[in-house]
C-alpha cells in the first residue's frame, strides 16, 4: 500500500511539473489509472497537502458532479486556515471558474483568517467576480486594508468604473456609517495606485512566522487561460520550500494551536506597534496626572507642622484683599472709610451739616466712594441744597446704578423743586430696583398729592396685593408744622 502511495506522490509531482491543461498532461492518464485501481478511497484523510488532495478529487470525480464540488469546498476551506503555498495556488488555477465560485468565494465571507486568505487566493489566481458582488462582500464582515487591496484584484480592470458607481449608489442608500466608510475606502483603492501583486494577509504572516512564501512574479489575468510560463527554477525552489513548510505544519492543522506558542509575543509587539500613538497619549496623560497630583498636594497642603510665619509677617503691605467683597483695600481706602464712618456718627443725631463735611472729606480722598456720595446727597437734601444733592446722587448712581434709595432721594429732591415729572421717573426707577412697599407708599402719596389720584390708587392696590401683611395707606400731605413737631 505504501508503495502505491509513494507512486502516487511521484506521479503527482511529475504531473505538476508538466505544462498544459491538467487533463492534457502526459502523466494524467497514468495517475488517474493509479487512483481508480489502487487508491479508491485511500489518502482521503491523510493526504500530504491540500494540493494533492485537490488533485485526488479531480482524478476521482467527474466534472460538475456535486460530490466533486462538495469535496473541493472542504479542502479549500481547510486550506484557507493556513498559509497557502505556490503549488496549491497553481493547482487552484487549474480549476474551472465554476468550481472556484462555489468553493473559494464563499470563504471570503469568513471573518477569521479564512476570509483574508480566500481573498488573497482569489486575487492570486486572477479570479474575477461580477461588479454587483462587491457591495455584499464589503458589508459581510470587517475588512482589513490588505484584504481590500486583494479584493480590488477581483474587479476586472474594465469594470472598475462600474463597481465604483455601484458602490457609490450603495453608499448613498446605506445607513451604517462603517459600511459607507468601507465603500468609500474600497473605491479609493480601486482608483489608487494598486500594488503589482496581491498582498499576503497580516494574519498569514503572524501565523506562519518565519516562513517565506515567494509570490509568483507575474499574475495571470485570465483563469481560463493556460498557466503562465514560469521560471522552473524559481518554481522548484518555491515548491521545495512549500513542501518543507507543509510537512512541518501539516500535522497541526488547527490554526489556533499554531498561533498560540510562537505568535503570542509577536502579536503583543504588533499591538504595541500599531497602538504606539495611543500609548504615547496615555503616557502623556499619566505624566500630567502624576504632575498634577504633586501640584495638588502642594496646593492643598496646609502643613500645620510649620510654625514659620509668612515672609511678609508684620510688615505693612501695599494693599489687602477684602475677604468678603474681594475689594482691594489700601490705606487710602481705609482713611476715606474712617471719615465716612465719622459722618455716619453725626447722622445718628441728624447733624447733617457736620456729617456733610466729613462725607466730603471722605470724597476728597476717594472720589468714587459710592456710599459717601449717597450720604453727601442725603445731607444736602436735608439742608435743602437740592442741586448739590442731585449732583452727588447722580454721581453715585453712575458708579453703581443698582444703588438702593439713591433714586428715592433724587425723587424727593425733584419733588421739593416741584419737578413732578422728574420725581415720578426717579420713583419708578427706584421701584424697578426693588419692589419696596415703603417706597411705593411714598410714591403713591406723592401721586395723590399731585392730583394723580387714579394712578396713586392703582399703585397702592398693586403693592397691597404684593404685600398683604402690610397696611399701605394714602395720606393727606402732612403739614410742615407737624413734621417739625416730630423732630422737635
Amino acid at each position, binding site marked *: 500500500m505504501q508503495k502505491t502511495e509513494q507512486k502516487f506522490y511521484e506521479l503527482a509531482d511529475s504531473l505538476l511539473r508538466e505544462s498544459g491543461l491538467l487533463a492534457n498532461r502526459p502523466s494524467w492518464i497514468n495517475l488517474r489509472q493509479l487512483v481508480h485501481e489502487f487508491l479508491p478511497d485511500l489518502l482521503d484523510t491523510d493526504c500530504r497537502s491540500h494540493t494533492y488532495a485537490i488533485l485526488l478529487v479531480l482524478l476521482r470525480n467527474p466534472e460538475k458532479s456535486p460530490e466533486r464540488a462538495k469535496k473541493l469546498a472542504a479542502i479549500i476551506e481547510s486550506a484557507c486556515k493556513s498559509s497557502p503555498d505556490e503549488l496549491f495556488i497553481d493547482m487552484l488555477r487549474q480549476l474551472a471558474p465554476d468550481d472556484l465560485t462555489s468553493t473559494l468565494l464563499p470563504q471570503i*465571507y469568513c471573518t477569521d483568517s479564512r476570509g483574508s486568505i480566500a481573498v488573497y487566493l482569489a486575487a492570486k489566481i486572477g479570479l474575477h467576480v461580477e461588479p454587483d458582488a462587491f457591495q455584499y462582500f464589503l458589508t*459581510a464582515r470587517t475588512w482589513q486594508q490588505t484584504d481590500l487591496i486583494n479584493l480590488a484584484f477581483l474587479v476586472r480592470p474594465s469594470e472598475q468604473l462600474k463597481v465604483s458607481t455601484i458602490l457609490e449608489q450603495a453608499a448613498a442608500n446605506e445607513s451604517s456609517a462603517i459600511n459607507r466608510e468601507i465603500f468609500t475606502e474600497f473605491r479609493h483603492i480601486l482608483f489608487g495606485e494598486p500594488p503589482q501583486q496581491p498582498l499576503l494577509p497580516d494574519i498569514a504572516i503572524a501565523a506562519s512566522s518565519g516562513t517565506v512564501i515567494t509570490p509568483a512574479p507575474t499574475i495571470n489575468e485570465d483563469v481560463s487561460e493556460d498557466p503562465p510560463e514560469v521560471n522552473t527554477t524559481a518554481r522548484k525552489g518555491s515548491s521545495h520550500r512549500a513542501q518543507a513548510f507543509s510537512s512541518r505544519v501539516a500535522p497541526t492543522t488547527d490554526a489556533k494551536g499554531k498561533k498560540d506558542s510562537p505568535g503570542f509575543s509577536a502579536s503583543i509587539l504588533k499591538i504595541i506597534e500599531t497602538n504606539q500613538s495611543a500609548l504615547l497619549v496615555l503616557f502623556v496623560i499619566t505624566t500630567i496626572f502624576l504632575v498634577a497630583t504633586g501640584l495638588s498636594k502642594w496646593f*492643598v497642603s496646609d502643613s500645620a507642622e510649620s510654625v514659620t510665619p509668612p515672609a511678609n509677617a508684620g510688615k505693612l503691605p501695599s494693599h489687602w484683599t477684602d475677604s468678603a467683597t474681594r475689594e482691594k483695600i489700601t490705606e487710602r481706602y481705609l482713611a476715606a472709610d474712617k471719615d465716612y464712618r465719622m459722618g455716619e456718627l453725626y447722622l445718628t443725631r441728624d447733624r447733617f451739616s457736620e456729617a456733610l463735611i466729613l462725607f466730603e472729606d471722605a470724597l476728597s480722598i476717594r472720589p468714587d466712594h459710592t456710599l459717601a456720595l449717597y450720604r453727601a446727597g442725603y445731607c444736602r437734601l436735608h439742608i435743602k441744597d437740592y442741586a448739590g444733592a442731585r449732583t452727588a446722587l447722580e454721581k453715585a448712581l453712575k458708579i453703581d446704578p443698582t444703588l438702593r434709595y439713591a433714586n428715592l432721594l433724587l425723587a424727593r429732591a425733584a419733588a421739593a423743586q416741584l419737578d413732578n415729572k422728574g420725581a415720578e421717573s426717579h420713583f419708578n426707577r427706584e421701584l424697578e430696583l426693588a419692589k419696596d412697599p415703603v417706597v411705593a407708599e411714598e410714591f403713591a402719596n406723592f401721586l395723590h398729592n399731585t392730583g394723580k389720584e387714579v394712578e396713586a390708587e392703582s399703585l397702592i392696590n398693586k403693592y397691597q396685593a404684593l404685600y398683604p401683611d402690610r397696611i399701605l395707606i394714602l395720606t393727606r400731605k402732612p403739614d410742615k408744622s407737624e413734621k417739625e413737631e416730630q423732630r422737635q
Partner: protein
Amino acid sequence: MYRHYKRKSDRFGVTLVEIIVASAILAFIGGIVGHWFFLQREYQGRIFAISDAQQTIRQASWRMMQELRTARSVLFPRINADKSIRSDSKVVFKSFAGDVICYYYLASEKEIRRCKIPNGPGVPTADSEPVARNVDQLAFTASDEGNRIIDIFMEVKGTFGLESVYLINE
C-alpha cells in the same frame, strides 16, 4: 447569488485582541486614576474634616451665643479672686426668663450638652440631643468683673473656633 452569503452578525464583531487591548488600557487608566484617588483621599479627608469641624463650631457657637446674648448674668465661671481670668469646660448663666441654664462639655463623649435648671420649683432637665458632637476641646472664659462677657474657645479636629458674647441684659 452573493446575497446568499451575507452574514449580518459578523459586521460589528469585537475580537479577543481588541477586548484585551481595551481592558489593558482601561486597567492602566484605572490604576493611574486609582493611585491618584488614593493620594487625593488623604487631602479630601482633611478637607471634609475641616468642613465638618467648621460646621460644628458654627452651629454650636450660634446656638450658645443666642441664648447667652439675652442672658442676665453669668454665674459660672467668674473671674478669680485676684481678678485674673478663669476658664472652665462649662458655663452657667441666668437666662432672659430668669432660669439657670448650663452648657457643659462631656469629655467622655466629646459632646457639648445643655441643661436647664428651673429657678424655682421644678427638676433640672437635660436636653435629649447634644448641642454639638466631636468637640475636642471647649473652654468658657470669664474676663470681666461685671460678669457680662464670656469667651468661648472650641477645637474640633484641628480647627479652632473663637467667640465672645456680651450679655445685653442686666
